[in-house]
């Protein structure tokens, strides 16, 4: 069975149904503000939490993009805030459109509304996205975009690149493609992208997107899906939205945006990042098993602009620490790994843990088997699922050490070829996942 079979008939529930279901979720104050705005064509969502440093240029770029590309459309910006203490919502409500008009010499034909609402006191992408989707549903928005407040490299063109395929070309989901440094975003390139591609059969470069656009239909469908109370729906709904579109035949594409903004997210945020992405991906496997179990190979997704761009400027990385953390992880977490991994995989990892820096090579095959065994253990819940996800972090560091060592002097093309090779390995070993998934081993 090929990935073509994924193109199924879509069944989008009536928007009023979703609206009714979400009525209690939105606050009275927000509903009042939304009613004052009335129906809109485009909604731009801005989920924030203490983003005071970066929010102003991001907001100005969004406003400029709207004035430039959608001057006749009815547009609203919804800021879903997770309890900022640095005045982020005030910066958004206080931002004047006049500054943008003068700076970019643009004129608006309609009022550009901006609404701020607080969905909770702690940041979580699930409630933030749910607020944005429910607002979009209530306002009957035809196209919606969600922009990360950390997108420091955003320019007004991003708004057009994300929203035009939805608004003018009837796509349901538009995902970003970024220009990245060859050593940035490695969790995406070493795990999330190759595994999503092998499992679901679509070559989506950024399945976990922070800047993306979607149609009102897809938004309503996702809103009515009952995953908001799950861990994945709470912390990583972006990936679930992508998978909803891919598995239910919504028209999806990806568009090149340019360099990805540098966020404050560093190596210390690895575990939360793994939870958001890998945790969501693992949790999606069980309900979607009938869809993915029959897929082999992968097919390209419509891409507007280049499929990838890699920059090569020198970057200082503490590789030694990565290897040390891998070795200490393998030695300290023996009991945890013993319940997750196959004995032969664990034996190979132990062997790797005793290798010298020069001998150390975490091969693609071993990495893919490791990830698939973690996915199967997650499904069987051999230990707490959150512990399974956390236990992947030291092994990921080992794989990254290997990748950095192998690609120290690699060109952009070589890095891409390396990622492509890993993707092929994920696809080749998919029967292994099915075997351990079904208890064959």
């Amino acid at each position, binding site marked *: 069975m090929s990935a073509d079979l994924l193109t199924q008939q879509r069944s989008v529930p009536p928007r009023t149904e979703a609206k009714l279901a979400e009525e209690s979720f939105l606050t009275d104050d927000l509903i009042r503000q939304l009613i004052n705005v009335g129906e809109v064509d485009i909604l731009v969502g801005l989920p924030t939490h203490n983003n005071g440093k970066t929010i102003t240029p991001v907001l100005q770029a969004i406003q400029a993009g709207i004035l430039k590309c959608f001057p006749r459309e009815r547009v609203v910006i919804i800021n879903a805030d997770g309890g900022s203490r640095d005045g982020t919502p005030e910066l958004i409500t206080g931002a004047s459109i006049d500054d943008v008009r003068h700076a970019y010499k643009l004129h608006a034909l309609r009022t550009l509304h901006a609404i701020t609402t607080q969905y909770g006191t702690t940041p979580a992408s699930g409630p933030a996205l749910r607020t944005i989707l429910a607002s979009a549903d209530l306002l009957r928005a035809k196209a919606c975009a969600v922009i990360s407040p950390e997108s420091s490299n955003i320019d007004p063109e991003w708004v057009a690149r994300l929203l035009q395929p939805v608004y003018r070309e009837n796509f349901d989901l538009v995902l970003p493609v970024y220009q990245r440094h060859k050593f940035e*975003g490695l969790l995406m390139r070493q795990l999330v992208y190759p595994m999503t591609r092998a499992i679901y059969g679509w070559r989506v470069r950024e399945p976990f997107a922070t800047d993306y656009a979607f149609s009102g239909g897809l938004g309503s469908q996702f809103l009515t899906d009952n995953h908001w109370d799950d861990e994945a729906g709470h912390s990583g709904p972006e990936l679930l939205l992508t998978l909803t579109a891919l598995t239910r035949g919504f028209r999806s594409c990806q568009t090149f945006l340019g360099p990805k903004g540098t966020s404050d997210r560093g190596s210390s945020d690895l575990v939360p990042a*793994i939870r958001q992405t890998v945790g969501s991906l693992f949790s999606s496997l069980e309900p979607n098993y009938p869809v993915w179990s029959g897929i082999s190979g992968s097919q390209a997704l419509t891409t507007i602009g280049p499929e990838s761009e890699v920059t090569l400027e020198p970057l200082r990385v503490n590789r030694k620490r990565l290897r040390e953390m891998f070795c200490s992880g393998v030695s300290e*977490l023996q009991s*945890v790994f013993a319940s997750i991994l196959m004995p032969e995989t664990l034996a190979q990892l132990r062997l790797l843990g005793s290798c010298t820096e020069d001998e150390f090579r975490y091969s693609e095959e071993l990495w893919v088997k490791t990830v698939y065994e973690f996915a199967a253990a997650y499904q069987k819940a051999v230990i*707490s699922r959150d512990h399974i996800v956390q236990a992947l972090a030291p092994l990921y560091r080992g794989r990254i050490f290997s990748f950095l060592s192998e690609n120290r002097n690699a060109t952009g093309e070589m890095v891409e070829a390396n990622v492509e090779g890993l993707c092929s390995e994920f696809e080749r070993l998919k029967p292994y996942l099915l075997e351990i998934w079904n208890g064959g081993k």
Partner: protein
Amino acid sequence: MAESEAEMREMIVNELTQAMHDIIRDVARFLPRLVVMLVIALVGWLIASILKWALRSILQLAKFDKLSENAGASQLLKQAALPSSTELLSRFVFWVAFLGFILLGVSVLGIVGLQEYIARFFLFLPRLFVALFIVFFGLLAASFFSRSALLASVNADLPSPRLIALSVRTVIIIFVFSMVFEELGVADQTALLAFGVAFGGLVFGLALAFGIGGKDLAREFLQRRFVHRRKEEKEDELSPL
């Protein structure tokens, strides 16, 4: 003389006959009770067997062995050469039920003094169940939190993650067993005192070890965490997403 001898013989015979009659009457009274007791024991054995089978099936369906493995209870059982936790719990329920029926049967025999002990046993059963419940979920909690501590320590690159995890597990287990002893009423004051002393000693010992015994290590550790670490992180600032 001959008359008195005859009277005496008759008296003895009468007494012996009376004694024989009494014995026969007592045996005749006792036998049905014994039969009732045996019937109760047999019914008890049947009910206990059904309970054992039902519980074993339910536990197997609920994958209780897996839960027990996660709790670390299976490892303890293996080390003690005991059967799986499902089997052990089923057998436990069987024996408790069977013993309960036997005691019920014994009470039918009407042996003076036993009644009170039997009543005490039945009053003790709920406490025993609560104690077992505390042990199982206590071990589960100890296993979960020690694994959480282990993973968090490894991912935060803290020194001696296994020692941290072991400390967490030990404290929880001490706490659990102090609760169990209190519930069973076995040396409850001693157990409470022992817990207080052990916990206080652990905290005091750690404070001493950290502050005095390992002050160089503490300084080095704090420096590494808050001074050098920042520099290292800057070098290692690879965004995963």
